């Protein structure tokens, strides 16, 4: 078959790290080629070489049989290779059309003015061809995450890309948005576009991938047709060992109800309630925009509420802001760790101590020795991989960053712990560790509230599942009742309403 792109023996070294050693890779026109591997396996480095951000130390690239030496991302784009990053590169204050045509706007009047009419017309045609219900004149900040993603893809298509690289494209998408993305991907493939699809989500890859390449420690491990491999086999290739259980066993019977939120109401929430027992993991499922994050933020005092009451250990508590929440031993691990959780440019120890510094102080003066002990203890207990407590936290892997946040709340002996997408962007091995930690916290008597958009995670971890839709709770399922289908049908009231309209 036609090889659109060939990567032959590419090596790349960064100071102190051998990022890629002799990697081979090939891509055919019209295929979806999954690229998998744990964080640090070299996937992103390889993609950065393809898109001209890094230069390879050794090896060769062939594009349509001809040597290809990308110098800059612009050069890569001109040669038909575009990458869509996990973090979008859209300008919120500009419209969809302005973003898509940024720096190549159609001109009129001696090239001095931007031809808005033409730009909007062409954008409309492009969006129509992708079956997208987005207006060219909408501002980016009014779009949902899924819509932004589609705009990114549309933007890449204006470049007439032959090769589209998608990095974890579904991490912010809900189930039916994923399906929409997949139908667009299939359409593009029919037109001969080749897709490199980087993801940790095996279930989704099963649906979309034609071939798969596994990388580990900067090496090419295996390339195969997706149909010829099994998921356990791929996972063992990725981690270099076999993982028997994806979700660890938990053998604690939940105790009494320790925390209740009743009738929480604000712009995004309509009279939402929950109860959680000590030792219990309560999962909250729902589609993107169902109000799950808004619900827990309201509980934590991070967003204002118009009505609602919290009850802890039988007595009402007042939580006006996160300061109150923390005092009542609530903890919140936000979905966007980097934006809302970590002080990225500060050290591991500072991050661990952020919620509890005053507990290790007398008269407002910090007890350094005590702090050092506590930090050491958390690093050991949680097996946080860091060269030192003074390491800047942004250099840790996603899994270790999440452990740092867990450590932060362990310092407060939190009794109600809210995890919002606890394993987003974390690789397979580290996911398992996070699950074990959640179970240990529950076993120690904490009440756990866990939001997740990954169906297997919700099913594998929760004792009980609340399903939300449009700012309301639309169902509750016990572990034994819960199936993917039942959750989806409860979660997708929204989709039904929309199609009726």
């Amino acid at each position, binding site marked *: 078959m036609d090889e659109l792109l060939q990567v032959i023996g590419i090596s790349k070294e960064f100071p102190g790290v051998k990022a890629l050693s002799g990697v081979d890779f090939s891509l055919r026109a019209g295929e979806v080629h999954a690229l998998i591997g744990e964080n640090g396996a070299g996937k992103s480095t390889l993609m950065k070489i393809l898109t001209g951000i890094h230069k390879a130390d050794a090896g060769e690239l062939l594009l349509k049989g001809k040597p290809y030496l990308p110098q800059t991302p612009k050069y890569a784009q001109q040669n038909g290779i575009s990458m869509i990053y996990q973090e979008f590169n859209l300008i919120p204050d500009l419209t969809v059309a302005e973003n898509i045509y940024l720096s190549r706007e159609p001109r009129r009047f001696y090239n001095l003015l931007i031809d808005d009419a033409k730009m909007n017309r062409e954008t409309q045609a492009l969006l129509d061809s992708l079956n997208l219900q987005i207006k060219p004149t909408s501002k980016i900040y009014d779009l949902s995450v899924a819509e932004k993603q589609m705009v990114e893809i549309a933007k890449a298509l204006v470049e007439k890309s032959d090769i589209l690289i998608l990095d974890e494209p579904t991490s912010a998408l809900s189930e039916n948005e994923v399906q929409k993305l997949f139908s667009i991907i299939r359409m593009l493939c029919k037109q001969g576009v080749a897709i490199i699809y980087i993801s940790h989500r095996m279930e989704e890859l099963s649906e979309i991938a034609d071939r798969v390449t596994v990388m580990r420690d900067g090496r090419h491990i295996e390339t195969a047709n997706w149909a010829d491999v099994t998921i356990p086999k791929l996972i063992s290739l990725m981690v270099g060992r076999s993982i028997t259980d994806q979700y660890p066993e938990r053998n604690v019977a939940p105790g009494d109800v320790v925390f209740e939120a009743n009738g929480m109401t604000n712009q995004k929430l309509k009279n939402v309630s929950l109860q959680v027992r000590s030792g219990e993991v309560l999962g909250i499922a729902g589609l993107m925009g169902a109000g799950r994050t808004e619900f827990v933020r309201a509980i934590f005092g991070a967003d204002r509420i118009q009505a609602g009451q919290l009850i802890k250990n039988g007595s009402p508590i007042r939580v006006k*802001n996160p300061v109150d929440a923390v005092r009542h031993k609530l903890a*919140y691990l936000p979905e966007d760790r980097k934006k809302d959780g970590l*002080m990225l440019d500060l050290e591991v120890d500072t991050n661990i101590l952020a919620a509890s*510094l005053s507990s290790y102080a007398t008269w407002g*003066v910090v007890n350094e020795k005590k702090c050092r002990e506590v930090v050491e203890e958390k690093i050991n207990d949680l097996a946080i991989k860091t060269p030192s407590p003074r390491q800047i936290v942004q250099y840790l892997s996603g899994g270790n960053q999440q452990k740092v946040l867990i450590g932060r709340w362990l310092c407060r002996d939190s009794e109600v712990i809210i995890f919002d997408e606890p394993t987003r962007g974390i690789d397979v091995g580290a996911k398992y560790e996070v699950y074990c930690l959640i179970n240990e916290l529950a076993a120690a008597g904490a009440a756990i509230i866990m939001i997740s958009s990954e169906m297997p995670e919700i099913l594998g971890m929760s004792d009980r599942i609340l399903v939300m839709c449009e700012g309301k709770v639309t169902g509750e399922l016990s572990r034994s009742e819960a199936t993917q289908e039942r959750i989806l049908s409860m979660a997708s009231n929204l989709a039904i309403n929309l199609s009726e309209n």
Partner: protein
Amino acid sequence: MSRSSLLKNMSNNTKQTMTVVIALLVLMVVFSIASPYFLQTNNLMTIGLQTSITCITGYGLTFVLIAGAVDLSVGSCIAFTGVMCALLIQAGLSPSLAVVMTLLIGGLVGFLNAVMVTKMRMPPFIATLGALMALRGLALAITEAKPVFIDVPNFKLLAQYRLFGVIPLPVIYMLALGLLASFLLRKTVIGRNVFAVGSNEEAARLSGISVFKIQIFVYVFSGVMASVAGIILASRVTSGQPAIASGYEANAIAAAVIGGTSMRGGHGSIIGTIFGALILGVLMNGLNLMNISQNWQMFATGIVVIFAVYIDKLRSMQGV
């Protein structure tokens, strides 16, 4: 131990401070060659005296900048508090009571800045720019733009007395307040939380840190430091001068930034600010001795500041 591993084992803060110290030493060597007068005790004390104002104001700015905000009002605040101090003494208050009142006024100015930034959600740059103009206007209005003379002999000793006949008292204030500021910033809960808020305000808020309290703290501290500078200046010129200290906010910000405090928040140190202020002081003094005009001194200072901000930018691009 080889040199490279020695460098590796130093924290980034230490490395930064080392760079500033080396820059200061180089400047001093150059000027001592250029002028035989430069290294004489008397001249060094003059540098100390001149540096003290920038440095003390710079402590406040260091706090505010680390918290991720900025305070442009300090220059005007120096003039306003100096005038207030003079008026209070003229009104018959004892110098010591007048000084305490003036410090409180400085704190109040900082508090109002903080309220604008937190409760009224104004961008720090705009809010304190407004305060810069308002305070200068107020200082000029209540004095009808005329100096307010202080004829209490004790008061001028505050800045003019020399310890052992050599060290001007403001140099002592500078060092003592430096110790205090460094202690507050590095050893107390509230000081440590300043870094957390400056690095990521939302993450700090969601960790249960009261961002409001932190911002009140840094602005009040900045206001009090400006009023200390106001009192010192008033004592040096034995009057409250409504037009004095114009543009001093730039010196204070420059001292902090040269000393490694980040304009993006989350990073900085008091020791760095001291050396930053010394670099500015030495530069101006040395150029003075070499008979280079005020205008060119200002130009040189500007270049140093631009260079320091560029270094800060390089650091952030390396992700350090």
